[in-house]
């Protein structure tokens, strides 16, 4: 039996995939931008987007039986998005645990682009100033479709907790090897097709970046301008998109837990037309590091479909995958994405999907 943690526009759901029922519902009616369990502690984290009342951070140590609201990360006095524009927290994009050797370390990626770090289990967070003060930020990071840049991806190297990659949408991939004291852009080989210089050092748009658990030097990203892969720890990126599609534009991406050559995407038409290709849902999988891609449609709607899958709304666990869509449809596969079962069509729009 699988339990999915669904962050949706109308609350956080723990969903029983065998019985197709909501086991528990939390923050009902309130958008949950991101929800995930910290595997080190079993704590269930939720970024709650109250809109009117601002972003709020909640956690539960007992799978939702009780919740505690923590102080939301706050940009310090004097922090500016651009000169003269004070920075305030506008979105909680992602919540990621630190290394196994840092049981109290938690990271939060936010909009307008700041990385926050806690060393007390989330009771307090501080802005990682070295990244916020990176010389590229004010001039070369920007909001893309949102008002401001978002830090949407955080990958802590399981071999070395001081080695971290982050992805800024829009800004690019950055690496630290000294625990966040300094950061370097790692965008060589990516394409920023919307910039005058598509090969610029900074200003790329990694919608979502994931690292292979079995080989952390291999990372995949669904970028605004295609799908890219690195096998050398982001020193270089290779474009593994399909020139004629369908693998090109999209938001979500997942990598197999054991085989770093295997990844999945749920592509959409293009930047200019963000809808399902031929109004049909397709999941594409590569088994050879992106050289070739297979299309899987069994169990997915092939007509009158306008679903997209947002960047945090595709999850993998062993041979199982699950995704939720902008139209509130949720699907699960138990055969590595080759066939799908619908878990419901009347959810609210889905922002994040995780296996519990």
């Amino acid at each position, binding site marked *: 039996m699988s339990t999915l943690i669904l962050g949706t526009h109308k609350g956080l759901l723990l969903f029983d995939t065998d019985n197709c029922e909501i086991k528990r519902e939390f923050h009902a009616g309130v958008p949950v931008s991101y929800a995930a369990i910290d595997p080190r502690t079993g704590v269930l984290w939720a970024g709650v987007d*109250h*809109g*009117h*009342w*601002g972003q*709020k951070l909640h956690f539960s140590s007992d799978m939702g039986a009780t919740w505690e*609201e923590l*102080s*939301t990360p*706050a*940009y310090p*006095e004097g922090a500016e998005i651009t000169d003269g524009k*004070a920075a*305030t*927290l506008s979105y909680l994009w992602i919540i990621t645990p630190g290394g196994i050797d840092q049981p109290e370390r938690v990271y939060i990626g936010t909009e307008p682009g700041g990385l926050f770090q806690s060393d007390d289990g989330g009771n307090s967070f501080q802005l990682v100033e070295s990244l916020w003060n990176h010389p590229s930020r004010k001039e070369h990071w920007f909001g893309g479709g949102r008002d401001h840049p978002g830090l949407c991806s955080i990958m802590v190297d399981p071999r070395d907790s001081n080695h971290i990659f982050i992805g800024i949408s829009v800004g690019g991939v950055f690496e630290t090897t000294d625990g966040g004291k300094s950061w370097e852009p790692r965008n060589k080989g990516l394409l920023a097709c919307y910039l005058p210089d598509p090969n610029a050092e900074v200003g790329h748009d990694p919608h979502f970046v994931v690292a292979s658990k079995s080989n952390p030097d291999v990372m995949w990203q669904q970028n605004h301008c295609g799908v890219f892969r690195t096998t050398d720890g982001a020193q270089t990126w290779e474009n593994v998109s399909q020139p004629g599609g369908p693998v090109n534009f999209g938001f979500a991406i997942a990598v197999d837990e054991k085989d770093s050559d295997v990844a999945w995407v749920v592509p959409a038409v293009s930047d200019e037309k963000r809808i399902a290709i031929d109004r049909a849902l397709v999941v594409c999988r590569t088994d050879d590091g992106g050289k070739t891609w297979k299309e899987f449609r069994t169990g997915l709607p092939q007509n009158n479909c306008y679903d997209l899958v947002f960047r945090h709304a595709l999850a993998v666990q062993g041979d199982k995958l699950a995704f939720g869509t902008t139209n509130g449809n949720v699907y699960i596969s138990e055969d590595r994405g080759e066939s799908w079962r619908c878990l419901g069509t009347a959810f609210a729009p889905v922002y994040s999907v995780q296996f519990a």
Partner: protein
Amino acid sequence: MPHVKFTKNLQRFFPTLRDSVVDGCTVAEVVASLDKRYPGLAGYIVDERGALRQHVNIFIGDEMVLDRQTLNDAVNENSKVYVFQALSGG
């Protein structure tokens, strides 16, 4: 001391929230006083710079606050302060 009334919407997150009489000569001081009584409440009304959140409104009597950035609007002991949120949603 100013009297403060709240939208019912906030009671979901602060179940003990009630209409309150608090200290303050400005709206900002009123919010700070409320936060002492209901820890965390200020963060629902203002952002970390102390500016009124975009879709939250505060009235003093029948008049909307003018200074949304620092909430320096004056209040007195007879002021009735109302904290509302926008009715939009969906």
